[in-house]
C-alpha cells in the first residue's frame, strides 16, 4: 500500500475545512460582511462545532454498524428535559446538570439498545418507535410545558466559547480512546468490518451493540444540555418533531469518512463538523432564508455523494488529462 508522508496527510485532512473557509470568506468579501465579526460569531461557530461533532459521532457509531437511529433528537430532548427539571427543582449548577443529562441519555440509549437486541426488530423500526416513545415521555414528564431556565444565569452562562471547546475536545478524546484504543473499540471495528466472522471469533455483538447505544445516547445528552443552556428553554416535540437534528449529521459524517483516509476517522468527523459549522455561521452572517439553507445543504450533500460514488472515474479523467497535457 502506498504510504503518504505525514505533512501531505495533514494537508489533505484540512483540505475540505480550509476550502470551505476560503469560499465562504470570498462570498463574505463580495457581500461586504465579515464572517467572524464579533464574539457572537465565534460563539455560534464553536457551538455548532460542538453540536454537529457530537451528533455526528452519535449517528455514525450505530450507522456504521447498519443501525439507523431516528431517536437521537428525542434522546437529546428527553435527557435535557429531565436534567433541566431537576436543575430547576434542586437548584443545581450547570456541570451537575450536564452530568445528569449525560447519565439519563446514556440510560435512554441503553434502553433503546435493549429493546433492539431483545426484539430483534429491524433497528430503523425500533428507532422510530423509541423516538415516539421518548417524545411522549418528555411531554408527559413536563405536562407538555417543557422546561424554562431563562432566569438561571448560571446555566445560561455555560454557553461560552471555552466550554464549547472543552466539551468538544473531551468528547473527541474520549471517543478516539474508546473506539481506537480499547478492546470494546477493537470489537466494534471487527463487527463493523464483518459481523459474522467477528461473532465466530468470539466477539459478543449484543454487549457491543448495547455499549454503542449507551455511548450514542450519552453524546446526545451533551447536545441536549448545550441546547438547553443556549436558549434557557427546552421545547416539546411530538409526532417525530425531534428527528430533524440527525439530518445535520449526514454531510459531516461523509466528509469525516473521506478525511478519515488521511487521519483518524473521529478527528475527520470533527473536521467535517468544522466545515458544517462554518456553513452555519455563513448562513447566519449572510441572513440566509431557511428555504435557501435547506437547498444549499441538500445540494452539498448530494454533490459530495456524487463525488464519492464517482471518485475513481473523476480522478482518472483528471489524471489522464494531465498526463496527456504533459
Amino acid at each position: 500500500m502506498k504510504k503518504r508522508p505525514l505533512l501531505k496527510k495533514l494537508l489533505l485532512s484540512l483540505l475540505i475545512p480550509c476550502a470551505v473557509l476560503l469560499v465562504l470568506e470570498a462570498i463574505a468579501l463580495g457581500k461586504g460582511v465579515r464572517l467572524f465579526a464579533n464574539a457572537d460569531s465565534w460563539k455560534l461557530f464553536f457551538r455548532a462545532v460542538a453540536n454537529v461533532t457530537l451528533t455526528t459521532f452519535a449517528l455514525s457509531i450505530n450507522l456504521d454498524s447498519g443501525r439507523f437511529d431516528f431517536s437521537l433528537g428525542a434522546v437529546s430532548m428527553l435527557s435535557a428535559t429531565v436534567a433541566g427539571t431537576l436543575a430547576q427543582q434542586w437548584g443545581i449548577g450547570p456541570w451537575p446538570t450536564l452530568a445528569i443529562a449525560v447519565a439519563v441519555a446514556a440510560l435512554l440509549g441503553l434502553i433503546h439498545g435493549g429493546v433492539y437486541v431483545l426484539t430483534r426488530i429491524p433497528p430503523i423500526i425500533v428507532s422510530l418507535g423509541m423516538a415516539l416513545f421518548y417524545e411522549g415521555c418528555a411531554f408527559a414528564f413536563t405536562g407538555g410545558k417543557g422546561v424554562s431556565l431563562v432566569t438561571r444565569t448560571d446555566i445560561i452562562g455555560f454557553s461560552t466559547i471555552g466550554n464549547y471547546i472543552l466539551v468538544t475536545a473531551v468528547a473527541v478524546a474520549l471517543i478516539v480512546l474508546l473506539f481506537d484504543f480499547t478492546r470494546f473499540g477493537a470489537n466494534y471495528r471487527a463487527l463493523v468490518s464483518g459481523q459474522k466472522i467477528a461473532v465466530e471469533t468470539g466477539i459478543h455483538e449484543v454487549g457491543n451493540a448495547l455499549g454503542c447505544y449507551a455511548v450514542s445516547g450519552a453524546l446526545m445528552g451533551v447536545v441536549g444540555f448545550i441546547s438547553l443552556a443556549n436558549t434557557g428553554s427546552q421545547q416539546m416535540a411530538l409526532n417525530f418533531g425531534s428527528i430533524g437534528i440527525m439530518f445535520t449529521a449526514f454531510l459531516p459524517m461523509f466528509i469525516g469518512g473521506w478525511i478519515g483516509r488521511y487521519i483518524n476517522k473521529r478527528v475527520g468527523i470533527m473536521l467535517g463538523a468544522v466545515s458544517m459549522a462554518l456553513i452555519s455561521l455563513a448562513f447566519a452572517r449572510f441572513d440566509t432564508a431557511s428555504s435557501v439553507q435547506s437547498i444549499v445543504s441538500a445540494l452539498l450533500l448530494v454533490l459530495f455523494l456524487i463525488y464519492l460514488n464517482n471518485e475513481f472515474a473523476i480522478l482518472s479523467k483528471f489524471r489522464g488529462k494531465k498526463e496527456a497535457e504533459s
Partner: protein
Amino acid sequence: MKNLKRFLSLALCLMLALACVPAMADGHVKIGVLVSDATSSEALAFRAYYTEYIAKAYGVEFIYSDELTDAAGEKSAIDNFIVNNCKAVISFSSFDRPSQIDQCDAAGIYYAVATGTLSDEQYNEYKDYETYVGAIGPSNQIEFQAGYDMAAYYIDQGMTKFGMFGGAVPYYNDMHIYRAAGMLAAMVEKGGEGANYKGADNAGAIIGQIYADGSIEPCTIGSLELAAYVGGYDFNDAWFGKLAQMVGTEGIQAILTVGSGVDVLGGFISGSGVKLATVDSFTPAMKEAMDNGILDYMAGKFAASIGPIFAAMLNAVNGQPIRDGEGNALALGQGYWVATSAEQFAEYSAVDSSMTDPAYTKEILDQYAAAGVSYDDFAEFVSKYSFDEIVALKK
C-alpha cells in the same frame, strides 16, 4: 382449536358489549377538539381549562385530536369524533376550515371555531349552515392591533431602534403576519413625516408587502429603525446565531416578537439590557421571566377565553343556537390582556391559572349557556374581555 376460537369470539363479543354499555348509559355530551398545536403553553392552558374545569363543571367529555399537521389529519380526526358519537367539534386547527365545516355538516354535528375567525368570504358561505355555531377569537384586525399596541408602547417611551422576531411569518401564518404588520404600522405612523416601510405607508399596503415578500426587511422607518429581523422556527445553529446577533445588534433597545419571545430569545436577552415584548400566555414560566426582567411586555390570551364558544356550542347542542336577526352564526372578536409589569402579570396570572375560579366560571357562562340568549346579549358579553371587565362580571 375450534373451542378456543369459539371462546375467543365469545370473549371479543362480550368485551365489545361491555365497552358499549357505559357509552349508552351515560348521556353526557361528547365534544371533539381539533388541535394543530398540543405543546405551546397557550395550547396547554386552553386544554387545562376545558378538561379540568369545564368538563367537570358541565359533565361534558372533551376528546382531543392528536397534534394535527395537515388537512388530511383534520379529516381523519373528525371521522374519529363521529365514530365516537361526538355531538360537536370545537376547532383550534385551521389547515382547511371549509372542509371541516362541510364534513361536520354532512355528519350532522355542530362545529365552532375557537381562538380564531373565518375570513369574510368563508363566513358568508357558512353563516347560515345549521350546524355552524360560529367563531370567537382574535380577528386579524385584533391581531394587527396587538402588534400595533406593542410597538407603540415602546415608541411612546422614546425608543427608536428595534429588533423583530417574526415567528411563522415565513410560513404565511395570518395571525403572525397581522401582528408584525401592526408593529410596522405603528412605526410608520409614529416615525414622522414620510415614514414608510418599503414604500408602504398604510396598514393595507404593509400587510400586502409582507404577504408579497414572506419576510420583513430591516430598514429605517422615518426617525425609527428596524435594525434586525429574524423569522421562522428553524431551531438550527444558524437560526440561533441570527437570534443572538439580533440581541447583540448595537444600540437595539427592544425586541418585538409576534410570539414565543421568551422561549426563543430568553437565554440571549438575559443580562443584555434589551427589552423583550411578546404575545404568549400567563404561565408560571412567563411570570418568572417577567419577575426577573427578561420579559417586559406581554399580550396574552387568557385560558378561559374559550369559555364563551363552549357556552355557544352547548346552546346549539341543547337545541337553542344563538343566531342574529337573519339567522346567521356567531362571528365575534376577542382580544388580549396586556401586562407591562410584574405586579400586573401576577394579578392576571392568578385569575388565569385558577381551576376553581377561572376568568369565566360556570356561574358566568350559565347566564349565556341558556335558552333565550340573544345574539346581541352574547356579543356584548364576549366584547367585555378585558381583565377589569371580567373581574366586574365575577362580582
